[in-house]
């Protein structure tokens, strides 16, 4: 007779969804900010992608809204250890914005109204994994959460999802952004707990 009965199904699965290591679940949406909230009127808002050769591609607010819209439902993970699951956004995929842009760049410095910046590999903005998001849970993205529009790159720690995003600088070499120069990780994968340089 075996020591495992036929009815043994293993340990019951936890009802808690899986979280990256070191994270806790939150139901609210904490506001984190490194400075005052910039007020960006929609009639002067623009998003610009600058390639490594200096070519610029610009979208006004109305041009952004006329592009195909997507509604990603994603989990977000802040390096300050909170995670929020199943958040619903609306925005334009970076695949759409990067389509037709001629570049050999490997890195991106995302920059924002208010002076914030963060660096990412360009590949991480492709493949249906990144958006310029303007709507959160069916409403306009509040300014304290990055409205009118923020970068949304949910597979990386949320400091990479630059609030008040203004543009992307495509670069051949990596250039650190605001928190990266202060010691945070260049990539920031929450599942590998890449919080700080050297993690």
């Amino acid at each position, binding site marked *: 007779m075996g020591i495992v009965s036929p009815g043994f199904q293993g340990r019951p699965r936890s009802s808690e969804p899986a979280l990256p290591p070191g994270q806790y679940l939150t139901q609210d949406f*904490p*506001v*984190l*900010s*490194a*400075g*005052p*909230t*910039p*007020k960006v009127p929609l009639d002067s808002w623009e998003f610009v992608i600058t390639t490594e050769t200096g070519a610029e591609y610009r979208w006004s607010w109305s041009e952004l809204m006329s592009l195909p819209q997507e509604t990603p439902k994603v989990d977000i993970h802040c*390096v*300050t250890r909170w995670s929020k699951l199943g958040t619903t956004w609306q925005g334009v995929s970076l695949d759409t914005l990067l389509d037709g842009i001629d570049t050999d760049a490997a890195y991106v410095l995302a920059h924002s109204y*208010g*002076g914030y910046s963060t660096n990412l590999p360009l590949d991480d903005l492709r493949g249906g994994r990144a958006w310029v998001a303007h709507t959160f849970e069916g409403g306009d993205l509040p*300014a*304290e959460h990055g409205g009118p529009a923020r970068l949304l790159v949910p597979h990386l720690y949320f*400091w990479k999802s630059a609030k008040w995003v203004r543009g992307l600088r495509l670069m051949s070499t990596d250039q650190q952004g605001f*928190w990266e*120069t*202060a*010691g*945070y990780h260049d990539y920031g994968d929450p599942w590998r707990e890449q*919080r*700080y340089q050297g993690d």
Partner: protein
Amino acid sequence: MTDMSYLDGNMLDAPLRELFAVDLSGAMGRCENCGVVGPVGGLRVYSHAPGLVGRCPTCSQVMLRFVRSPAWARLDLRGTTFLQVPMPLDQPHPGPM
């Protein structure tokens, strides 16, 4: 810009005591952006963030960032051209060379 909640720079005293033996809130710092000189205690400190961000009360530029990991503390002062720390008058000092 709209206002965001921030604390005054005196809150930096405790975290910076991990690095320095002196109370830096009384030190004077010069903003690299606008040139204004003022006490560290007068900075506007944004603490609901992955680190502490001290901004110039005059021009709002970042003068100081402090990040504390489990293994290290990093003080980034690239927005500050100098820090002048008050010293006790009764201590011996090298004087002019």
